[in-house]
């Protein structure tokens, strides 16, 4: 079992509240709690999957880690070092170790800059290498994300590339400094299903060869299963289930995870795979705020218990933990 020392990233009780923008237009002035006391660890060399539906707070986790957004409360540690509020050199060093790959490759590359400029930018910022070593590093990384021959791409501009190629450039930019930790935020959701596999394999390759620990954000359990060692399922800013990918997907315990699995379109020999049927199509009305966050949509809820208090993550077996009253041990 992994020990504390091996964790690259530690997230402890992180909460993020987006303040409503003034009450100028009435109802829009509400605060949104995007994350609610989320804690988990990511271990060295693993790909950690964060799975959930739209609006569940996946991107928020990523943005908090890389510091694009400030935490409302809680702590984030990289290699045992608190990263919230880093300044000066420590911050710059942190910047060279943690990178992010964004969802939309059509938006994440500056249209005015050639591929070489984009990929070499982190090298320039952190003063790595001279002109010729920089170029070699860029060539090498382009080659390893499958843009070959690299010289064909160095001076192209993003508008000449397909979506899949752009996303590879974005991966190259994130990986060129050989960071310790990379967050990939739904890197294939804007791409064709058939191109996604290429991107998955590049990410796997980066882990295997460069030993880059990764957090992979997705709403597809199938992708998470293929790519990740461990996954966490998040719903409305709360972790519902966490464990090894195979465990969580083959043996889901939380009603929400089961609902997610039910929703995956099946095909081939497995069309008649059993359905869990744990999702209510119509939301339940809830009075209080204290209950399980999934209670309004949970088809198997215990009316009295689930509406009144919130279940905590409890161990089912080994690393597999679930936040649900129905599950033994939780």
């Amino acid at each position, binding site marked *: 079992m992994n020990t504390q020392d091996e964790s690259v990233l530690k997230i402890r009780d992180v909460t993020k509240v987006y303040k409503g923008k003034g009450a100028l237009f009435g109802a829009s002035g509400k605060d949104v709690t995007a994350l609610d006391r989320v804690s988990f660890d990511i271990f060295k060399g693993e790909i950690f999957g964060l799975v959930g*539906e*739209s609006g569940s707070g996946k991107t928020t986790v990523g943005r908090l880690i890389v510091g694009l957004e400030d935490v409302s409360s809680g702590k984030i540690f990289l290699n045992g070092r608190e990263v919230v509020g880093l300044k000066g050199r420590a911050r710059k060093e942190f910047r060279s170790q943690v990178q992010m790959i964004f969802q939309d490759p059509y938006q994440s590359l500056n249209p005015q800059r050639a591929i070489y400029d984009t990929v070499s930018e982190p090298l320039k910022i952190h003063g790595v290498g001279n002109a010729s070593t920089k170029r070699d590093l860029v060539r090498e990384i382009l080659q390893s994300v499958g843009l070959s021959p690299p010289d064909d791409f160095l001076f192209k501009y993003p508008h000449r590339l*397909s*979506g899949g190629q752009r996303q590879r450039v974005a991966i190259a930019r994130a990986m060129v400094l050989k960071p310790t930790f990379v967050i990939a935020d739904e890197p294939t959701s804007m791409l*064709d*299903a*058939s*191109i*996604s*596999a*290429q991107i*998955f*394999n590049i990410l796997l390759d980066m882990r295997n060869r460069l030993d880059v620990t990764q957090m992979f954000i997705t*709403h*597809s*359990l*199938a*992708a998470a*299963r*293929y790519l990740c060692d461990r996954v966490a399922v998040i719903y409305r800013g709360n972790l519902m289930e966490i464990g090894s990918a*195979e465990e969580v*997907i083959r043996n889901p315990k939380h009603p929400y995870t089961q*609902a*997610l*699995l*039910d*929703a*995956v*379109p*099946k*095909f*081939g*020999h*497995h*069309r008649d*795979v059993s359905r869990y049927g744990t*999702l209510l*199509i119509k939301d339940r009305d809830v009075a209080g705020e204290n209950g399980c966050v999934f209670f309004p949509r949970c088809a198997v809820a215990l009316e009295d218990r689930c509406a009144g208090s919130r279940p905590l993550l409890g161990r089912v077996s080994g690393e597999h933990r679930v936040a649900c009253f129905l599950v033994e041990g939780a």
Partner: protein
Amino acid sequence: MALLEVDNLSIGYNTKKGYLKAVEKVSFDLEAGASLGFVGESGCGKTTIGMALMGLLPPNGSVKEGRILFEGKNTLEMTDEELRKIRWREMAMIFQAAMNALNPVQRVGNQIAEAILVHDPSVEKDQAMDQVENLFRLVGIPLDRLRDYPHQYSGGMKQRAVIAMALACRPKLIIADEPTTALDVIVQDQILGEIKELQKEFDLSIIFISHDISIVAHMCDHIGVMYAGQLVECGPREGVFESPAHPYTKALLSSFPTVTGKRSDLIPIPGETPNLVVPPHGCRFCDRCSGPEASCSTEPPQWVEIAPGHRALCCRC
């Protein structure tokens, strides 16, 4: 007689770089109440086929050859007037990314009512509003959201509204172009389920377009796999997915992660799609194919019958 018969359909676009052969020699038919799914990479011509069926190709696009027989009548020879009569009332389309094309400054209910009024002048305004209420019930949007604006809707609700709009005139055929692409799995599952139910209820024929084979497999009895403007394999779902014949279909299937069964390595398809202005002379999939034969790059492949109703465009099958 099939509801829809498409015969040797070729479509192209005039572009700056030359004549782009977006669809080449595509033939298929669709029985009333059946569902056909087109699957293929971005740019393979799926939307183009849908638009041609509706008679809504953009000005630079044109049908080069072929026939589209809808209930036995060739829509390509119809006048604009005749076409307008069957469009929406006989066949309707859920356009790609239509949910983002809702008019942001008009209430959703009114938009749908307006669509009804435009297509059926005999309907009174109140009747149209009643119809809209029925449609909302049908696609599962709460009636109290009738008077909301699109930005107050979630993605799933917008998509439902778009489906309601397509259903407004109770067509026999619906062409659904990537209706769930921007949605997350749970909403997608709900909407797919609803489409299936509507299909049963109204005995709809559906042409379902997606780049995601799992969705097409989930939704349709018949599958057409498209590559670079050509239909490369076509047949009943079980046939196509359980004994795929064309190398492209095989490659698609093995590049797809699943939640069930054994976790196996994904084999991505190498390379990029060919340029459709000057398509390769032989098989278009040749340079990405896992085991092409010498003749593949020189001779255009021929259709091969794999099983009754299941055919593939490949010389290796």
